[in-house]
């Protein structure tokens, strides 16, 4: 899960002449994690203390001069670097008051950007594609700068960044030439340059934004097109050295964002971690158009995880390709008249947290139906076909279901209609119609207290095209009507039941099914606290009973679909104890139970410590194995005692 927290305004923005132009050229970090160096679009560089929303210093160039690249911080010398009027590199320290008096050097070619990152020396990227380390450039500013990109071909840089890996330093930049887009990966020390051609999007539109990150020794490039497609390309850090010419850069579709009518104007996507992407400048899938949102999407599961409306237009500038910055858990978004800082949090995205914990593998596989993307294919990095289609169908496919009987007909007729629908529909359409239908029926039940169609609902749930989020009231309705059969069915088949509902079920009945429901620890514990002491004790006793039952025949245990696993039981015991420990300690009738639990925890701990010892010994044994390669002859010294 990802969360967007309450944001704050770092500074106001001066409205520029054109509404579409961004007032901000760049936001960079300096040595202090709470600082942000903001370069506006004209003459000023301001250093802010982010948490205080307070400027610490500001530097401007003279009237008539123009900052042409965002200021960066040289982490090695603790100096700031900026370029004015394309050719003049200025270097100053925080205590310097006037930029004019600071060190400056004029170089022989136009600079595109200066890039800096912790752990690496700043690099200067020239507009014609050449790259120099700042130090070596400043030692001989007038050194000739070669052209990598040819002037005649009109190849221009659109976006650039740098990445410092453990021992390697990369400058990445993308260029546009006659409607084609290229990615250049410049490795420093030793210097190699590799050129890749980006696949052309059908609409021939240029990418709106790029974002690059380093993960597992691969550079992941994420880019967004106006039609809402977010692609990812992967470039190996240990690249194909020595390959000449332009390589095609394969891409994979990570996300297809709903763009509403038309195409996106200015939007930007930035990768937060391997599973989450923050997108600004696109409409919310369910809100009116005309409003801009900041959204966090989970690319693995194609789900919208968090969103926030940004007041005023997102300031963007086509061509600069950057309207959102992301540093250290904060998103910096210039919009309207302000630069907002929005802290966010992305929990490690895994199958367990997205789907909840410890789903029985057998079930997980059996559920790879249309409603839920096939986890296997997703996890193996295939193209997320399923979810894309969902998004598509949501927009385009209009179902041909006649809703009339469901809105007024009696229970029996509804059941028959549902049966007919389910048996006729093909999987794609079914999914949409089933969801709608379920919502309809639930809504009707909520209005008409006399109407409740358990058979029809059960049939719909059984199609496995339904999940909790599609029709959140269904399970609660079933609970209300004490329809345990439907509850159990939902618990079995829904992958996304919220913890609060799980707990609600728990209060009403204890079953196998509840234990197997997916959950996230820290979200479940608060809800578990709602249980009262007798309920907890009863539940613990039940857990202990099945634990003991399992421990007796642990070797003969065959994976039964509907039975919780050992780990699930233990996890639940832990959670319950976490939530209610103080209460249980006080309750006299829980004493025996607790001491029993303690004894099996003890035995487990002992077992694990013994296993740990064995592991240690085995590792030692492994080390003892002679690693020396023994040659044909050697003279060695031994000692006998």
């Amino acid at each position, binding site marked *: 899960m990802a969360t967007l927290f309450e944001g704050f305004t770092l500074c106001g923005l001066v409205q520029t002449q054109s509404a579409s132009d961004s007032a901000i050229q760049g936001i960079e970090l300096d040595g202090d994690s709470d600082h942000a160096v903001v370069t506006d679009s004209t003459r000023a560089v301001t250093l802010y203390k982010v948490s205080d929303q307070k400027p610490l210093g500001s530097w401007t160039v003279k009237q008539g001069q123009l900052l042409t690249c965002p200021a960066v911080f040289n982490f090695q010398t603790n100096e700031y670097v900026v370029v004015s009027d394309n050719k003049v590199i200025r270097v100053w320290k925080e205590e310097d008051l006037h930029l004019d008096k600071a060190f400056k050097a004029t170089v022989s070619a136009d600079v595109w950007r200066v890039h800096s990152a912790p752990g690496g020396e700043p690099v200067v990227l020239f507009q014609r594609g050449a790259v120099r380390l700042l130090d070596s450039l400043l030692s001989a500013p007038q050194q000739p700068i070669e052209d990598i990109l040819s002037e005649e071909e009109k190849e221009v840089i659109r976006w650039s960044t740098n990445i410092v890996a453990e021992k390697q330093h990369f400058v990445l930049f993308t260029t546009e030439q006659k409607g084609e887009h290229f990615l250049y990966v410049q490795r420093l020390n030793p210097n190699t340059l590799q050129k890749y051609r980006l696949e052309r999007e059908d609409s021939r539109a240029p990418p709106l934004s790029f974002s690059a990150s380093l993960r597992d020794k691969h550079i992941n490039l994420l880019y967004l097109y106006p039609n809402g497609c977010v692609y990812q390309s992967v470039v190996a850090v240990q690249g194909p050295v020595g390959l000449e010419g332009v390589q095609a850069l394969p891409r994979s579709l990570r996300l297809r964002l709903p763009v509403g009518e038309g195409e996106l104007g200015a939007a930007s996507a930035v990768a937060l971690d391997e599973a989450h992407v923050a997108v600004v400048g696109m409409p919310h899938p369910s809100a009116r158009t005309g409003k801009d949102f900041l959204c966090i999407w989970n690319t693995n599961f194609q789900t919208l995880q968090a969103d926030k409306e940004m007041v005023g237009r997102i300031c963007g500038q086509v061509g600069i390709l950057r309207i959102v910055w992301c540093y250290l858990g904060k998103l910096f978004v210039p919009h309207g008249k302000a630069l907002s800082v929005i802290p966010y949090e992305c929990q490690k995205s895994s199958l367990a947290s997205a789907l909840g914990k410890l789903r029985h593998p057998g079930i997980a596989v059996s559920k790879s139906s249309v409603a839920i993307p096939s986890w296997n294919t997703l996890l193996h990095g295939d193209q997320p076909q399923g979810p894309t289609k969902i998004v598509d169908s949501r927009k385009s496919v209009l179902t041909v279901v006649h809703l009339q009987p469901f809105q007024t007909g009696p229970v029996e007729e509804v059941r028959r209609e549902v049966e007919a629908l389910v048996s006729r529909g093909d999987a794609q359409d079914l999914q949409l119609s089933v969801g709608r239908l379920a919502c309809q029926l639930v809504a009707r039940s909520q209005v008409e207290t006399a109407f409740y169609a358990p058979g029809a609902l059960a049939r719909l749930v059984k199609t496995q095209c339904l999940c909790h989020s599609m029709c959140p009231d269904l399970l609660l309705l079933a609970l209300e009507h004490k329809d345990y059969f439907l509850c159990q069915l939902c618990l079995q088949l829904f992958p996304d039941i919220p913890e609060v509902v799980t707990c609600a079920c728990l209060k009403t009945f204890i079953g196998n099914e509840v234990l197997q429901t997916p959950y996230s620890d820290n979200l479940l514990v608060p809800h578990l606290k709602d249980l009262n002491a007798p309920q907890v004790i009863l539940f613990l006793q039940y857990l202990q009973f099945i634990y003991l039952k399992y421990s007796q025949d642990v070797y003969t245990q065959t994976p039964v679909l509907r039975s919780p696993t050992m780990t699930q039981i233990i996890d639940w015991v832990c959670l319950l104890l976490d939530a209610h420990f103080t209460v249980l300690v006080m309750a006299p009738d829980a004493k025996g139970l607790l001491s029993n639990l303690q004894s099996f925890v003890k035995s487990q701990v002992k077992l694990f410590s013994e296993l740990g010892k064995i592991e240690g010994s085995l590792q030692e044994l492994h080390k003892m194995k002679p690693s020396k390669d*023994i*040659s*044909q*002859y*050697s*003279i*060695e*010294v*031994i*000692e*006998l*005692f």
Partner: protein
Amino acid sequence: MGEFKVHRVRFFDYMPTAIRAMAFNAHTERLALARMDGSVEIFNFTDHYFQEKVIPGKDSRSTESLCWVGGRLFSAGLNGEITEYDLENLRPKYSLEAYGGPIWTIISNTQGTQLAIGCEDGTVKLFEVLEEHIQFERNLDRQKGRIISLSWHPSGTHIAAGMMDMIRVFDVPTGHAVQRLLVDRGFGGSKSQETVVWSVAFLSDHTVVSGDSAGKVQVWDGHTGTLVKTHLVTKWDVLALSVSKDESSVVAGTSEGTVIQFQFIAPTLHQQQDKEWVRTRTFKNHTHDVRALAEIETAIVSGGMDTHLVVRPLLEKFDEKSHASGLRKIHFPHRNLVSCAKKAGLLLFQFPGQLELWRLGDSDGHGKPGDRLPLKRKPEKLLLLKRKGEDHICCSALSSCGGWLAYSTVSCVRIYRLQTDNNNISITKVSKLPKALRSAHQLCFSSDSSKMFAASSQSSVLVIALTQSECKYVHTLKPKSGSRQPIHLMTTSVDGKWLAAANSDCEIRVYNLQKLKLHCIVPVYGSCPSAMGIHPTTNNMTVVHADQQLFEYSIVEKQYTDWSRKLQKQGLHNVWLDRDTPVTHVTFNPKNPNQVVLHDMHMFCIIDQSLPLPDQKTQFYNQMTLRSLSEQERPSHLHAFKICKTFQDLLCVSLLDDQSLVVVERPLLAITSQLPAPVRQKKFAT
């Protein structure tokens, strides 16, 4: 005890050859084993599987099959000859051309009066076994196609013969073939290939068991010629069969390296009458073809392409875990193939076809224990001496000064004078050798290199005097009575006064070289000596036997020393006694008279006679413990046997005069890597 500089030598490319055939003599409990190079080895199964005799091979001899008749050993091979061996002189006694083309197999009847051979030309030839010879008797009906395998019915009246695609049963008195058993071919592609019946076994109840190249073990009724049962055991060949003495069990060796046991048992407890041949156990101790098999009373003995001999005890025949119930693998010969010139720092490696002389490297560095020292000079192969003639080298020796080198085959002895100055080496063959010196079982030089001793026939030892220019026969030390068995160990004292010689009848004779006569006979112990050495200062002789017993005998006083008596009284430690390879070399530390160095395949041991002997409760392998103890604690934990297992697969451990150890290793992995690829077996996911 202290630090030692160790020359760790791995450049002796010793390569044993594959085992081709074996025959077990249940009466004497000797196993005869033939290798591909024509050599024959005799193992004494009553004496810890000690390899007591080796008959060297010959280029033209190829042994396909071995057969005992009483105490006499016969072989036959693809050269078309039958050979009887002289087990006292370790050489073929005679060879006889059988005139039937290559011979595939040789068997004898149970009475030991007749031999039968199977020939390439399709004949089974019978020979009469005479006192000193064998004589051709007659042919059985000649068949089309070669006779690959034979088995004689215990009554002597019938012979079963395995051929191509069929088995014939002959009536021996008439010589007619009375049954023809057709053997199916393999499936699929091998359908077009003839099936070779590699092995047959004829049981008392006229059951014939066959093993063939289609991977089948088949049981036939020899009376009616009908097939009773087929066991498909491998995709490859079943190469060898062996029947237990009571005929209740048959073992089959396959190309996959497995040995499969079949037992004649009733499938259910209630019907004890209806017994049948049931496949019971599979043993996998080989990586390659199992070419030779013998099921003996308590074990299955197997050998094949992967060159090592495996004795796999049948655990149901043992009541308790004991020395005999452990699996034995015999990789290395139980004798020395390496001679070490202690003064000169030279090593002589003996191969069947050549000798290699190496000079050890040198290092002037010093290092901590565990260090590897930088080499100042690399080891150097000084000489490669190829033998003349067809006979393989049976023994060799290098004088301790490095000035003399000698080797012997069954037909000749050669002595060479070596001169090394700086980097040049010159070798001169000593041209005129005494007539008496025709062949030797063992050779050794006196420590001052003035004499050479050659173990000759009937346990006699020839004394040869060596001078710069010539070598002269001096004397023959001949036992007046006692055993005529060949001498397999010989050693001299440093002072040149004593010579000890041990033969495979376990006798150790000590000769006085000054008086050139027998000094004494060491009390005969029941197990064969596997190594012995005479102490340079005390002239006490240390003898280690195949059963791991250790004695120290004072030559001067003609009695066991006090230390030896103490050791015998207390008993050797069980860990020592349970080792499964014999000690093959004993040497001494000239600087420390208390130290005796000896080694087997898996360890070397320095015995410090000044330290207390370990009792059964003492931790025997205690080097690791001692290392971890402090200087003060150590003395209370010391005992006399200091064992180092750092070096493995040892062919030789010796102590040079400069106090550095020489360790010659031949890693089994290196041997395995030189074997041909085993048959392809489908493994999971390949």
